[in-house]
């Protein structure tokens, strides 16, 4: 059984848990998944599925999840996680997804408009900051499952605190993007620009294959390929100057970008819906 099959089975079987057992198990599941970004996904999902099947058996025998698994699930989950070796693949997948996703998003204007430069220095600084924030975010969220929740019971207060924390975390990112300027500015113009864009897309496609993002990666790949097409068009000798320098050309460019965004949105919705229908 591969990871996706196990997640699918888990989602299906979880619905058979009674309310209390479901709450107990879902806390465990969230805690383990948030704490295991550097552990082997296959081992983690196999553990989660085994525990779920066993809790279901216990439930059928009239035993609660807490009575079966124990009163201190966090300690027991930590003990299990300690037994697992670190997995470079899972860590690279997580870091790669964040960094590649962020870089692609930041480069959108420069991909389409050749004269817009990309400050790679700023990009590196802000990517590192993003990684740091997400790392602490995971730690914090995992901690809230068995810790903070008991301390701050008020839902609204909890939400307000989360919102405040998110704003405080996003602010430095904005400051980096706005004020950190480095000499590492590269303009992706002409044929060199086209080659770099094609290379970037090749990296993205190979990475998404390596990371196993089959279905959910499709809209991003499609959107990136559309942008690649636009990027190539705007860098071609005659077509490029028409699209970027004349008014009708600019309108066509904006229109195409809008259509591509709508397609991206539709494809994403369709894929999410079809996954929901299959109980994924």
């Amino acid at each position, binding site marked *: 059984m591969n990871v996706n099959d196990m997640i699918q089975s888990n989602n299906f079987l979880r619905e058979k848990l009674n309310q209390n057992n479901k709450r107990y198990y879902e806390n465990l599941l969230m805690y383990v998944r948030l704490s295991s970004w550097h552990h082997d996904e296959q081992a983690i999902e196999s553990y989660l599925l*085994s525990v779920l099947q066993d809790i279901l058996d216990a439930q059928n025998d009239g035993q609660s999840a807490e009575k079966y698994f124990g009163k201190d699930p966090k300690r027991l989950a930590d*003990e299990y996680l300690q*037994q697992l070796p670190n997995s470079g693949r899972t860590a690279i997948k997580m870091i790669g997804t964040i960094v590649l996703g962020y870089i692609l998003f930041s480069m959108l204007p420069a991909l389409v408009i050749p004269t817009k430069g990309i400050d790679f220095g700023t990009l590196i600084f802000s990517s590192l900051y993003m990684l740091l924030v997400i790392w602490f975010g995971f730690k914090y969220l995992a901690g809230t499952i068995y810790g903070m929740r008991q301390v701050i019971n008020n839902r609204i207060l909890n939400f307000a605190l989360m919102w405040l924390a998110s704003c405080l975390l996003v602010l430095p990112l904005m400051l980096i993007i706005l004020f950190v300027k480095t000499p590492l500015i590269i303009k992706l113009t002409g044929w060199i620009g086209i080659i770099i864009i094609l290379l970037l897309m090749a990296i993205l496609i190979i990475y998404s294959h390596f990371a196993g993002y089959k279905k959910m990666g499709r809209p991003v790949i499609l959107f990136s390929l559309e942008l690649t097409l636009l990027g190539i068009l705007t860098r071609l000798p005659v077509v490029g100057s028409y699209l970027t320098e004349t008014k009708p050309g600019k309108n066509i460019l904006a229109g195409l970008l809008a259509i591509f965004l709508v397609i991206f949105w539709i494809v994403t919705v369709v894929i999410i819906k079809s996954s929901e229908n299959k109980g994924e």
Partner: protein
Amino acid sequence: MQPNISSQMLKGILQGVMLMILAKQPDYGYGISTQLNQYGLDNIPKGTIYPLLTAMEKRNYLVGKMQPSENGPDRKYYHVTQAGQVARQEFVQEWQFLAQIVNKLIEER
């Protein structure tokens, strides 16, 4: 009433107990926990057995195989390996040796 066995003492013993149970017949998580209960270890939180099973797999004492279960989807059945059989025998010898000493001390109290 069952005494609360300290976790340090339990871990070492539980590994040996599980090796003895699985040597009789391969089993999966809930099956193992049911057997532990039958032997009187029903006070132990069964979340303890999962890290132990993984640790024993790492030491090559056990090998997990996905097999169809009586009801529902495939389960991971744990089989004792040759190294596991050796570890089981060592546990039995250590246990008998220690039990002899502790029992003697108890008798002399």
